């Protein structure tokens, strides 16, 4: 309209273009040397090569071996009184053990947790980005994001880069208006709501143990013990998780706050980080 154009006012769409350019991501083979990727998210991509197979082809000659850190067994289950999350703490890079004390429970915000399995860098980066989006949601709509919505945001981020070689299997756990929430999200865009999930190389062992001991109306201590046993047995048998005998683990319990709480009180307690030992007597387990 004539008056609108004369007044020099910018329409909302134009202003938004300046703050949030329409193309959120740009692909080059190097990052922008003016903004260094600070204004918009930028990813460098090797030209003319399929990104998912690229590292494998470079790792053949000249002594080059680029190994990325991978995280392993994690499990989480919902029961009447909340959500239990149990993770091991090993990170391997190829055959080398990069670290035995990685924290695989990533705090997205004080009442939402994400777990790490698959590529450590992918989980750390995308869950940190999810934390930013959840915070913006809270500021813009004046109520906390639900676990379902947060997991959907992460799932859509993964779908945007599907087929490019990302590797992430994460469980988004939290407590919202609907009660306890647990979603499994992976790098192919799978998003499942469920009662119990386990991810990583040791997941089959963890499923066996937790499925056999699970009851919906467990007491809280029983649930701690079940989570701990799941991880302990998985790390006992899986070479890429924990350790053969001594494995470090982290156990977190997400619960409803019981007393009137200030807005950002943590809804979860870090129950135990410790070392669990499985005793072996003549081939039978005692733990």
């Amino acid at each position: 309209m004539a008056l609108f154009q004369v007044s020099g006012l910018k329409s909302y769409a134009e202003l938004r273009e300046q703050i949030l350019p329409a193309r959120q991501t740009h692909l080059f083979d190097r990052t922008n040397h003016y903004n260094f990727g600070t204004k918009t998210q930028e990813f460098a991509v090797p030209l003319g090569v399929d990104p998912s197979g690229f590292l494998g082809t470079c790792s053949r000659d000249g002594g080059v071996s680029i190994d990325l850190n991978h995280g392993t067994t994690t499990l989480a289950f919902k029961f009447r009184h909340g959500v239990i999350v149990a993770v091991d703490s090993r990170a391997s890079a190829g055959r080398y053990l990069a670290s035995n004390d990685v924290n695989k429970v990533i705090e997205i915000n004080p009442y939402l947790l994400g777990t790490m399995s698959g590529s450590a860098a992918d989980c750390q980066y995308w869950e940190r980005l999810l934390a930013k989006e959840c915070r913006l949601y809270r500021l813009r709509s004046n109520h906390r994001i639900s676990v379902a919505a947060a997991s959907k945001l992460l799932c859509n981020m993964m779908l945007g880069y599907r087929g490019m070689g990302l590797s992430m299997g994460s469980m988004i756990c939290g407590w919202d208006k609907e009660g306890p929430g647990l979603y499994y999200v992976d790098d192919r865009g799978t998003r499942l709501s469920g009662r119990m999930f386990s991810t990583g190389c040791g997941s089959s062992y963890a499923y066996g143990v937790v499925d056999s001991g699970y009851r919906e109306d467990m007491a809280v201590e029983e649930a701690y013990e079940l989570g701990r046993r799941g991880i302990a047995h998985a790390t006992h048998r899986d070479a890429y998780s924990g350790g053969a005998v001594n494995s470090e683990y982290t156990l977190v319990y997400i619960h409803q706050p019981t007393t009137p709480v200030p807005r950002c009180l943590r809804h979860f307690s870090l129950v135990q980080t410790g070392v669990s030992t499985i005793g072996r007597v003549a081939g039978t387990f005692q733990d």
Partner: protein
Amino acid sequence: MLSSNAFVDPGKMKDYHYTGPVEHRFSPYSFNGGTVLAVAGEDFAIVASDTRLSEGYSIHSRDSPKCYKLTDTTVIGCSGFHGDCLTLTKIIDARLKMYKHSNNKTMTSGAIAAMLSTILYGRRFFPYYVYNIIGGLDEHGKGAVYSFDPVGSYQRDTYKAGGSASAMLQPLLDNQIGFKNMEGVQHVPLTQDKAVQLVKDVFISAAERDVYTGDALRVCIITKEGISEQTVPLRKD
């Protein structure tokens, strides 16, 4: 005496002979060797690296240290592909300056670590072939070490070795600084002098057994007084 090998399968070539066409492809990466180590103490941090720059069977330089000073309280050690190390440190310096100009303060070690993680992840699909370790003092004046993988996964440690001899050094540090797998030992906290001596000894051992590590050792000691450097000779063969 005739070897029966020749009659096994006359058409099949032995393994070490040329067997057919080989595809050679340009690789954007090359491995230049080098080892980096960082240790965090109560009120100090040490970042040490050897100074050998090699490629394949050759040594390009005997005086190419891999520690780069970022701020008065932070030093980064980068090993892997030298080209990517140089570019990465230039980008980090530029981002440090941008932060200083916008926020009128120097970046803390923890902030540099978080920033480096996103810089590295921006090349998730075409990584910088660099193994980084940041050593410095945190906001409370305590020693801090942050170790990274090539695409930006990081965590805070007490000690970490990275680079070509990392698999040899890390178990030794686990035993001497972390007191892992030792029985009946008192867990004494590490003093600065003991830590420097340990770092020197550990590199001498690494130079014995790793071909890409040697020539000289550069040790940077970060305390609240500033950063002091020492150079110690290592095996040159």
